[in-house]
């Protein structure tokens, strides 16, 4: 595999979709909004009844942290739609497939193009979130919560795994639809299982502690491998040209 080819394809895709407003909004607004909103909740939540106490803060933050797994599950949908369905719409796939690149190199390039901006956006949002949370909770907790914090560390490990799962699902979805909006909407459904986990933790079915998070990470890693197999079987030259819609 020529990784240089994948990198060339990824850079081209990134150059194309950073000009799309929907992609930019998703990349910037969602992580920014959540990373600012949660510290504001800690700071100003329950002001009328004396505010959130120091004891209430850690379980609350546990819930908030999970959103940095949900973000990478949501972000790839619009980007991957442009990366693959956009290429289908511009009818440029045949020409790309006629170059001396392998199916794997193209697929990897498309995946990198989605992965890099999405992970940067997620980690930037998480960093801002941790900094703001520490700033507003320092006095109540008597120190920094996130320096270090293993739960958040596992969350930051889970984020790329969730991201990969979402990218692979979006690749499979993109092969079945012919417009960007449908691809984006179908791919966006990826966040539902993660919302399910969040709700399960909220009603006490599971606890999102370090051990549970590691188990979830292992399950997602296995799913990543399974989805990778499916996406590579879908992304084959002949299928793309003769069977993709």
């Amino acid at each position, binding site marked *: 595999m020529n990784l240089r080819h994948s990198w060339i394809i990824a850079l081209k895709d990134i*150059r*194309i979709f950073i000009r799309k407003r929907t992609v930019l909004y998703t990349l910037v607004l969602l992580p920014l909004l959540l990373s600012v909103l949660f510290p504001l909740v800690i700071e100003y939540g329950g002001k009328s009844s004396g505010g959130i106490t120091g004891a209430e803060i850690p379980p609350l933050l546990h819930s908030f942290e999970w959103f940095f797994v949900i973000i990478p599950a949501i972000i790839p949908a619009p980007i991957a739609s442009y990366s693959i369905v956009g290429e289908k719409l*511009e*009818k440029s796939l045949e*020409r*790309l497939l*006629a*170059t*001396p690149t392998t199916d794997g190199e193209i697929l990897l390039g498309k995946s990198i193009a989605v992965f890099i901006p999405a992970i940067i956006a997620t980690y930037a949002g998480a960093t801002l979130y941790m900094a703001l949370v520490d700033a507003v909770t320092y006095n109540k907790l008597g120190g920094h919560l996130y320096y270090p914090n293993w739960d958040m560390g596992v969350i930051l490990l889970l984020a790329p795994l969730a991201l990969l799962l979402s990218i692979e699902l979006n690749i499979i979805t993109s092969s079945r639809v012919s417009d960007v909006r449908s691809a984006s909407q179908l791919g966006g459904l990826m966040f539902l299982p993660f919302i399910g986990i969040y709700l399960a933790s909220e009603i006490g079915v599971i606890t999102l502690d370090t051990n549970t998070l590691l188990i979830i990470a292992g399950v997602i890693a296995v799913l990543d491998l399974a989805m990778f197999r499916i996406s590579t079987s879908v992304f084959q030259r002949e299928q793309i040209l003769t069977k993709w819609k």
Partner: protein
Amino acid sequence: MIETENLTKKFDGLTAVDGVTFSVEEGEVFGFLGPNGAGKTTTVRMLCCLISKTSGTAKVAGYDVGNDADSLKIRRLIGLVPDNVGLYESLTAYDNLDFYGKLYDRTESQRKESIAALLKMLELWEKKDVPVATFSKGMKQKLAIALALVHDPQILFMDEPTANLDPEAAKTVRDFILELKKQKKTIFLNTHNLDEAQRICDRIAILNTTLRAMGTPEELERSVRGRVTVIQLEQSNDVILDAVKKLGLGDVSAEGNKLTISTADPEQANATILDAVFRAGGRIQSVNVVGSTLEDAYLKLVREREKV
């Protein structure tokens, strides 16, 4: 440069290309004529290693089509102009070309040189930094051809390169193909524009799932029926008619002062015919050789297939 033998492609039991055998020489412009759904694009896709063949053999520049190791080598040697321009509309003309140049592992200086040469030749240099979305259809098609040439391929496959273009843009594209022909590029041209095929191609193959005929445009015209020599006389009579009939070169008919002689090879027979007319006292006003056209040949061959 390109050789196929009994090349066949079936999709879920439906035969798109059936037992096609032909060869294309280096530096030749080879036209592939056929109606929509005849298998032209499928054949090009097989030769460009984009889809697999069901059976038969094909070689491009000596490499086996269908052999995984050879596929990348073939794709490196060829350029493809697909039936859709397939450009990245939000990128500039230069960036589109640069992207493909990189995928063919051209160095930066090679890319700069070939991109400048192509854009200047196609009169797009002034627009090199403009997003392609603003281009006219003709400009996009010219850029699409340039993309296929950015790595200086030996063989160029073109699928309907002038379809949907206005006459002026189509002429520009045709002129460019002729320019490439001068540079000894091997060109495989899919088209259903008969006039274009006749003007550009050295040889033409007519395809309608199976290969119906192959030859130079002139050979295909002649294959339909023998051409006729039409002689306009000042005054026709039976003596002249008998004199021509006695030559036994072909069917002779008279209509007013016009004699029509059907021969296998008018260029060969005309001197003898005119001599006989002259000796019989005929006074000749004009002589014309009226032949069947490529269109006649195409329609006959394609319909023959439909009747089968």
